[in-house]
């Protein structure tokens, strides 16, 4: 009887996952979608604790005190971490949580293997297969996510060495061969092989993420996210548990698609992201092409203030620099001030602005910028012709005309914001240092472009007070 109720609970939870994901895809319903999925997760967890009976012994779960203890510890830690994290640090937080899920899948496989290896492994090939698949994927996702987290929080540097790709492919092959022999048996002690596979999988996760450039981390996190989904689905096979299967595979497939969509926004293929070292390889030939016509023109905050105060239409292009400087609130003040003076203000959001697609929207929304003011690239590009001033804040590659004009540029083909069509362009940057892609930007040398150097927050605060002074 209890098993029947549990199956119905799992069914409901599976439906909430599907509806939740569907709702997450629409700005109006997204928040509700998240809550629906969370509700489904809740009933699935408590249903399992109280109603699950082992198909072999028919016994309910025991160790309830430990289970609740673990739940409480995890809830408190997860809640605090999630509430405390800065909005700018969101991507590494997602990566960290993803790693936790991967580690959870890995541990399940380890315990189940220990359990199995108490007896004879003969005739259990199917079960072993699923355990090992879950363990390999889970541990790659775990160690990979940890490296991604380290990179995003600045603790781990990009590292690549010669023949890295070859080593990775070789390592993967060794893992697969060892896994095969663990399942089929007969070569060595299965336990030894199993733990060798575990160690190598963890190592593979590290080596897989290490050479990928910091700018591509979002894509990697999204990919690892779908890995963890597949690892969770392995649990579904292991326990004949449909809710794990549905949740896991949904994330696996949706996550993979999301990864591809993200790559498309940068006009690169997934393969290119995974094997091409963007930042590293590109800098070499870029250094030679640094001579553009024209010169850098600097503008003072007061001149920039006048230009913007008496403009009809201003478009703000926020980039990573804005996120780093935590200037999202100041930029909102600037917007309100200009609006009160009768200037039309909009934000142009490049799909890969910030550290993750959509990250810039989250940041600006945090400082109460209205959702309608955030305009996506395709919609805003025709508007630059009629714009008096474009203010670029801490963005570089997404406004680099080389993406359209220079076939040798590493970002050639990436869709960009056509800011050079506007009457005036003011670029706020900390220095003349190149962006993520490590390439020079011709835009900065154009006659209509003027540079407002300084930390985004400081420069914008100054700009705001200068505009206020104009009255």
């Amino acid at each position, binding site marked *: 009887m209890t098993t029947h109720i549990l199956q119905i609970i799992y069914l409901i939870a599976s439906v909430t996952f599907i509806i939740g*994901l569907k709702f*997450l*895809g629409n*700005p109006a319903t*997204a*928040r509700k979608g*998240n809550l629906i*999925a*969370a509700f489904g*997760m809740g009933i*699935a*967890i408590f249903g399992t*604790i109280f109603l*699950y009976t*082992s198909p072999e012994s028919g016994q309910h*779960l025991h160790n309830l005190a*430990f*289970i609740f203890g*673990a739940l409480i*510890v*995890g809830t408190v830690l*997860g*809640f605090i971490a*999630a*509430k405390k994290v800065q909005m700018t640090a*969101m991507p590494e937080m997602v990566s960290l*949580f*993803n790693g936790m*899920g991967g580690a*959870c899948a890995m*541990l*399940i496989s380890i*315990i189940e293997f220990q*359990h199995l290896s108490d007896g004879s492994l003969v005739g259990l*090939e199917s079960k072993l297969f699923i355990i090992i698949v879950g363990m390999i994927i889970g541990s790659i996702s775990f160690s990979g996510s940890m490296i991604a987290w380290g990179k995003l929080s600045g603790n781990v540097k990009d590292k690549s060495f010669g023949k890295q790709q070859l080593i990775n492919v070789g390592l993967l092959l060794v893992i697969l061969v060892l896994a095969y022999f663990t399942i089929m048996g007969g070569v060595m002690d299965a336990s030894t092989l199993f733990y060798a596979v575990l160690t190598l999988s963890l190592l593979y996760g590290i080596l897989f993420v290490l050479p990928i450039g910091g700018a591509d981390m979002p894509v990697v996190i*999204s990919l690892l996210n779908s890995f*963890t989904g597949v*690892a*969770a*689905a392995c*649990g579904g096979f292991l*326990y004949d548990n449909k809710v794990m*299967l*549905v*949740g*896991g595979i*949904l994330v696996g*497939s*949706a*996550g993979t*698609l*999301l990864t591809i*969509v*993200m790559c498309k926004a940068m006009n690169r293929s997934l393969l290119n992201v995974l094997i091409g070292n963007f930042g590293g390889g590109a800098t070499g030939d870029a250094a030679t092409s640094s001579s553009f016509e024209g010169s850098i023109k600097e503008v003072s905050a007061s001149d920039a203030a006048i230009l913007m105060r008496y403009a009809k239409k201003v478009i703000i292009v926020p980039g990573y620099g804005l996120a780093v400087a935590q200037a999202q609130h100041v930029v909102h003040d600037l917007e309100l001030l200009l609006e009160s003076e009768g200037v039309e203000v909009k934000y142009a*959001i490049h799909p890969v602005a910030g550290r993750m*697609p*959509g990250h810039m*929207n989250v940041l600006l929304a945090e400082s109460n910028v209205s*959702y309608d003011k955030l305009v*996506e690239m395709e919609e805003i590009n025709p508007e630059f012709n009629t714009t008096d001033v474009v203010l670029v804040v801490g963005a570089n590659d997404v406004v680099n005309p080389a993406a359209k004009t220079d076939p040798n540029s590493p970002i050639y083909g990436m869709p960009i914001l056509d800011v050079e069509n506007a009457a005036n362009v003011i670029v706020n940057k900390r220095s003349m240092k190149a962006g993520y892609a490590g390439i020079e930007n011709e835009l900065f040398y154009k006659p209509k472009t003027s540079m407002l150097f300084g930390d985004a927050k400081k420069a914008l605060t100054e700009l705001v007070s200068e505009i206020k002074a104009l009255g």
Partner: protein
Amino acid sequence: MLEFINENIQLIYLVILMIFVGIELIGHVPSVLHTPLMSGANAIHGVVIIGSIIVMGQAEHTLSLILGFLAVVLGTLNVVGGFVVTDRMLEMFKKKK
């Protein structure tokens, strides 16, 4: 291999259907929502916690109890952290006038 497919044929049907559902569900998501969506999906794969609860509820040795405890803690972190972070992101998308 064949044996595995035969034993799990129902689940394999489910896997294939869910692959298509997953692709269909997020096929037309505006890029604005990519980060929250990734984070939401991240929370949903926390369903792996169900497995860790089952493992722990059947654990007998001290070692599996310890590892199981750790697994449930990590799974809970994934679930709770994931949903709370997503909610925080989406909280900011409220329509404003």
